[in-house]
């Protein structure tokens, strides 16, 4: 993010090529897993599984490609807050949906638990 000449307490972290390629390989593998899992037709669990895999992929990108792992923790906290707010929006919306529709709504519960 910043370099050593402007901020004494941080340093440039050059991520090794091997790590970057390893992350890319994992991301491709997880894409294959998510496509395969979708064909299994897991019913209500489809959404949960797909979102869980997507979140693992997103975490890998955020931690390594966006170098949050090596970065000022405050940046990671900001991203986390944004994600928490998105989860809050989805959770409150779906709770409201449940009350309006009066369905048993397993799908909504699944979405709540994964976002």
């Amino acid at each position: 993010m910043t370099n050593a000449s402007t901020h004494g307490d941080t340093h440039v972290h050059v991520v090794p090529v091997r790590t970057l390629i390893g992350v890319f390989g994992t991301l491709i593998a997880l894409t294959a897993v998510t496509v395969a899992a979708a064909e299994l037709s897991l019913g209500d669990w489809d959404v949960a599984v797909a979102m869980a895999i997507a979140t693992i992929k997103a975490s890998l990108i955020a931690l390594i490609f966006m170098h949050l792992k090596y970065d000022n923790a405050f940046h990671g906290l900001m991203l986390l807050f944004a994600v928490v707010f998105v989860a809050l929006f989805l959770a409150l919306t779906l709770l409201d949906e449940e009350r309006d529709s009066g369905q048993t709504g397993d799908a909504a519960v699944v979405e709540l638990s994964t976002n």
Partner: protein
Amino acid sequence: MWLFLVSEILFFSGLFVAYAIYRNRHIEVFTAGSGLLDVSLGALNTVVLLFSSLTMALAVRSAQLSQRRRLVMWLSITIACAVFFLGVKGVEYSHKVHDGLLWQGAITAEPGTEINGVPTEKLGTFFSIYFAMTGLHALHIIGGIGVLIWLLVRAIRGDFSGTNFAAVDFAGLYWHLVDLVWIYLFPLLYLI
């Protein structure tokens, strides 16, 4: 930069909430609509975008190490991937236009018939969300290409070095975020 990325996430979150509401209310329309998308083209674009994130990360690395030629190469590959992604998206859009599967109110697929057990008139609910989400995402790709070309020009000029690579770094963060959004869009729209 991170504040901008956070605002971008919240910007997209509105569409994800819209998706959740409509999917919750019309699950059968979403299942049918999703079945009409080409999974292999979607998966291809996912791989292309993930690869472009790798080349972008390698570009940042080259800038940090003051490797000008490599930086130019990685940036060029990233731009090529972005253009390829838009090309595939264009092919998908033109298929949908050809089949008359557009947003609500613009559907021209034969009325009164059913596709995947859902009347064609109803599929607009899914395709409205599909075009809004992928369209906004595509606009971000186009914006990203603009920034990457600017970086490429500056990289060729030799502007970046181990002590001055913040612009490449920030563009990289933005590019990865666009990739992140797609990682959620692909399963939500194509797979489930």
